[in-house]
Structures are given as structure tokens and as C-alpha cells.
């Protein structure tokens, strides 16, 4: 017969192998992010003077999405990403300190645009657009669209200005601060994860074994085992560069504005 002690040791072994694997995976993603950051070389802040792309854009982040309708009395369209693409069209940037640099379209580009700007580009433009999309979104194929967020003249940007940089970066976010913050998050996750696993282990080993505290520790360990897995994939998604961050955009029918007293009143 298998004793409770043997089975308890087995359960704790499973818990710890899993915990350490999830921690190792998070550290691996953090190391990749650090490598990407180092690949930018020196990053300089500046202002876009000119862009050679459509409508004077210096760079763009393009996200292909498919939307499907939720149906019901108050339908909304749920979008799902299919592909992300970074485009640097080239242009001129005035750097802090007075120098100006010409950016050529690089072979390997990273375009990082802040979340509110991308969210604005991905938003529903009008009631008519919503109705037009809704018809397609109800079909099995869904409503396909491309979301484009641009970096244009006059915007403040961070650019990889070094000629030897492996990756051409144009970003509206400070990439060093962004990478540092995400790395801290990864380390915090790993620390917290190991700490919670240790706390569950300590509680489950509390004397008397298999008593009330020990049982509560084991129950917490099981819940932790189940929840740490989605937490790990959530951290993985958070550590993705802004150019590949998964989006879950949603359109709801824009509310038609009631004419206010001021605007409906005749100018006379």
C-alpha cells in the first residue's frame, strides 16, 4: 500500500518540478528580451521631421485581425490577431542635442508604439463601419481587417541611431525603460512564484502531518499548481515586445449622440 508520506513526497515533487519549469521559461523569455534590447545598440530620443511612407509616416505597426460577432441583442465584434508587421519607411529625425539623422528602411525592423495610440487606431470609427463589419463578422470566415498605427512628423520617438545596430528600432516608448520594467516583472514573477510554492510546501509539512494546517497547505498547493500555469503564459505574453503583443480588440456599436440643446438651437 502507498503511504500518505510517499504520496505526499510525490505530490510535492510534481509541484516543484512544475514551478521550476515555469520559472525557467519566464527567465528564458526575459533573457530573450534583454538580448533584443542589446541588439538596438545606443538609443537616442528625437522628433520626427519627415517620413517617407504613406501620409508622411516614418514607420508603422500593422496588425492583421479577424473579427467575429458575439451576436445577441447588443452585438459586439471580438477581434483576434493573425499577424504583426513592423515597417520603417525611412525619413529624418532631429535628435536631442541638435544633430539630425536620416533613417533608411532597415532589413530587420522593430516598431514600438504605445498602447493608447494602437488602441485608437484599432477602435471603431463609426456606426456605419460597425454595421458594415457586423455582417461579415457573423459569417464563419469573419471580418478581416488591417490595423495600422503610424509614427508621423512631429512625434517624439526613440531610434536606434547606431550604424552597427542589429535591429532598426523606431519607438514612441522609451525602449530601455520598457525592457527594464518587463525584466523586473519577470524576476518579480519568478520570485513570487517560488515564494508561494515554498509557503504551500512549508504549510503542508507543518506538524502534525496531514492535520488541519497541513491539509490547508496541500489544498493551497493544488490551487497554486492549477493557477500558476495560466499566470506563466500571461507573463510570457507580457514579455512580448510591443510590436508582437497580443491584442484582444473589441468593437461595440458607437452610441449615436443625441443632439444637445446648444447644437440644435438655431444660430438666430
Amino acid at each position, binding site marked *: *500500500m*502507498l503511504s*500518505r508520506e510517499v*504520496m*505526499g513526497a*510525490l*505530490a510535492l515533487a*510534481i509541484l516543484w*518540478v*512544475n514551478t521550476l*519549469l*515555469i520559472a*525557467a*521559461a519566464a527567465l*528564458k523569455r526575459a533573457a530573450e528580451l534583454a538580448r533584443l534590447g542589446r541588439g538596438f545598440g545606443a538609443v537616442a530620443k528625437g522628433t520626427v521631421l519627415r517620413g517617407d511612407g504613406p501620409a508622411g509616416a516614418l514607420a508603422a505597426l500593422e496588425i*492583421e485581425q*479577424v473579427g*467575429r*460577432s*458575439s*451576436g*445577441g441583442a447588443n*452585438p459586439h465584434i*471580438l477581434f*483576434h*490577431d*493573425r*499577424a504583426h508587421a513592423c515597417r520603417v519607411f525611412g525619413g529624418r529625425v532631429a535628435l536631442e542635442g541638435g544633430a539630425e539623422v536620416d533613417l533608411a528602411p532597415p532589413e530587420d525592423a522593430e516598431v514600438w508604439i504605445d498602447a493608447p495610440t494602437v488602441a485608437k487606431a484599432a477602435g471603431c470609427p463609426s456606426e456605419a463601419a460597425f454595421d458594415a463589419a457586423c455582417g461579415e463578422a*457573423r459569417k*464563419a470566415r*469573419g471580418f478581416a481587417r488591417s490595423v495600422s498605427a503610424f509614427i508621423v512628423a512631429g512625434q517624439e520617438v526613440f531610434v536606434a541611431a547606431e550604424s552597427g545596430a542589429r535591429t532598426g528600432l523606431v519607438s514612441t516608448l522609451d525602449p530601455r525603460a520598457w525592457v527594464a520594467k518587463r525584466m523586473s516583472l519577470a524576476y518579480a514573477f519568478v520570485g513570487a512564484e517560488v515564494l508561494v510554492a515554498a509557503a504551500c510546501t512549508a504549510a503542508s509539512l507543518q506538524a502534525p502531518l*496531514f492535520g488541519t494546517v497541513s*491539509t490547508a497547505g*496541500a*489544498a493551497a498547493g*493544488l490551487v497554486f499548481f492549477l493557477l500558476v*500555469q*495560466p499566470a*506563466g*503564459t*500571461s507573463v*510570457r505574453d507580457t514579455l512580448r515586445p510591443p510590436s508582437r503583443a497580443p491584442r*484582444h480588440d473589441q468593437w461595440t456599436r458607437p452610441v449615436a449622440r443625441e443632439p444637445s440643446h446648444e447644437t440644435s438651437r438655431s444660430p438666430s
Partner: protein
Amino acid sequence: MTPFVRGRLLKHPAELRQLGIVATYLGLLGGMVFVPACRNVFFLGAACYLSFLNAVVIHNHLHQGIFESRRLNMLFRTVLSFGALYPASANIPSHNLVHHHFDDEGQPDWAAPESVDFRWNLLNLIHFPNVAGPNTFSGVSRWKAVANRTEFGRQYLYENVFAFGLTLVLFVHDFWTTLFFVAIPQLYGARCILRINLIQHDACDISSDWNHSRNFVGRVFNWIMCNNGYHTIHHNRAGMHWTELAEAHAREVVPRIDPSLDEPSMVKYLLRTYLFTPARPGLRRVAEAERRADPIALLPRELRRAELEAAS
């Protein structure tokens, strides 16, 4: 026996094998919960293996319900959900619609082998469910939120309530016995069925028509596994009953597949790939084999997916 079975209760007499697997598995769990003498290494090992087979039955049942009665099929899904501690209906979007086409609207399959990337390959095998599981359930939640899936949502809820509710009742009855002799087998089976995605597709060419999967062709293995070793033909002819897969594999797959993707033994493959070789095997040009063979009618993946979605 056959006339009694056919046309009355079961769609196919061979489904008795699947019912037998589930009944034996639940019997083992019940034995370990209520009879202390059953809490031994043999019962636990058998329960873990049968939990994996319970997940195989989920897979088969969600492709083709085993009962004639729709209500019985739905009821059986809830029983199977308890065995695996996840809602069996999750297989419809995650397996039938996304995995069968290696694609979720242009994004990688929720259980794509690339979702793990440790250099030591054994770690990939152990870690894989930690990634594929959450990917799957978040994907299912997104899929469920879309129009005309309220019936699916209801069934999914019933399965969740039954699976977690009954497990919780057992925990209240006897916490430690349930943790050791019910939850461990349940989670073992659920995690192993996710690992199968890695085992069957890693280092294969998922863009090809006939070399996207690894097959395990041992006869005894396939008898126990209800022919789930024949994976290529199952991907390409998802509507085919599992009893017909061996013959179809010999007829359609063997002339078109790289011989290295027809493994005689899963145990030998696992030992060789994950224990004796630390590095992960790289991609090889396995699809060459199908270019040399005669072409055969096969609908494009998008159409096969649309057909399955309409039927789900």
C-alpha cells in the same frame, strides 16, 4: 450482441472497448477512494494510464459521438470530463477546429510544438502542458464568446460543474485520498493528452499534406489506444471512424510518408527522443516523400475546417 448494440444504443460495436476503458478507469478511482487496500502502486499506475486513455476516448467521442442518442452523448461528455478534470467539449474548438489544421486564424495552433523551446528536450516534454493548457482554455473562451455558441457554452458549463463539483465532493469526503488517488490520475491524463501534440508533431512538416504527423503503428498499442497511433490519416480524414484508420493508413499514408514518421513503438521513440538524446531533433525534409507518390484527393485545410465548424 452486435444487433443489440447497432442501431439501438451504440453507433458501432467497437465502442464497447471505449466504454470498457472508461468504466475500468472510474472503477479504479472508486476502488482507491473507498477501499484502502486498493491504494497501491499498481492501481495508481493503472489509473494514471487509464486516465490518459479516458482522454483518448474524449478525443474519439468528440469527433464522433459513440451513442445514437444525442442526449446520451452529451451525458457521456460530462462523465468523461470528470475523468480528465477538464470539460470534454473543449476539444471541439481546440482539437477539431484549430489543431486539426495547425492554425488558429493565422496564429499557431494552441498546442504547437514551438510553444516550448528548452534546449534539453526532456524539459520540453515535461513543460509542454504548462503552456498548451492555458493557451487552449484561453482560446476556447474566446471561441465560446462568439455568436451562436450558446448551446456549446451551456454544455461546457455542465461539464465544468460536474467535473469540478464531483471532485470537490470527493475532496470534502476525504481530502488526502482524493488528492493522491483521484486528482493525480486526473491531471496525469489531462497533461499527457496535451503532450501527445508535441510527441506527434515535433520535427514534422506541418505545412505538408501527408508528413505533418508522427504515427505509432504497433498493433497492440493501437488496440489499446483505439487506433490513435495512426495520426496522419486521422488529421486528413477527421470524419473517418477510428476502427477504419489502420487500413486507411496503409492505403493512403504509407506511400506518401517519410518512413521515419512511422514509428513502430512509442516507448522506444520516447526513450530515444527525450531520454537518450538531450538535444531537440531538428526539422528534416520529410515532405519529399509525398512529392514522389501519386497525388490523392484531399480537400484544402480551410474547407475541411469550415466543414468541421459547420458540424460542431
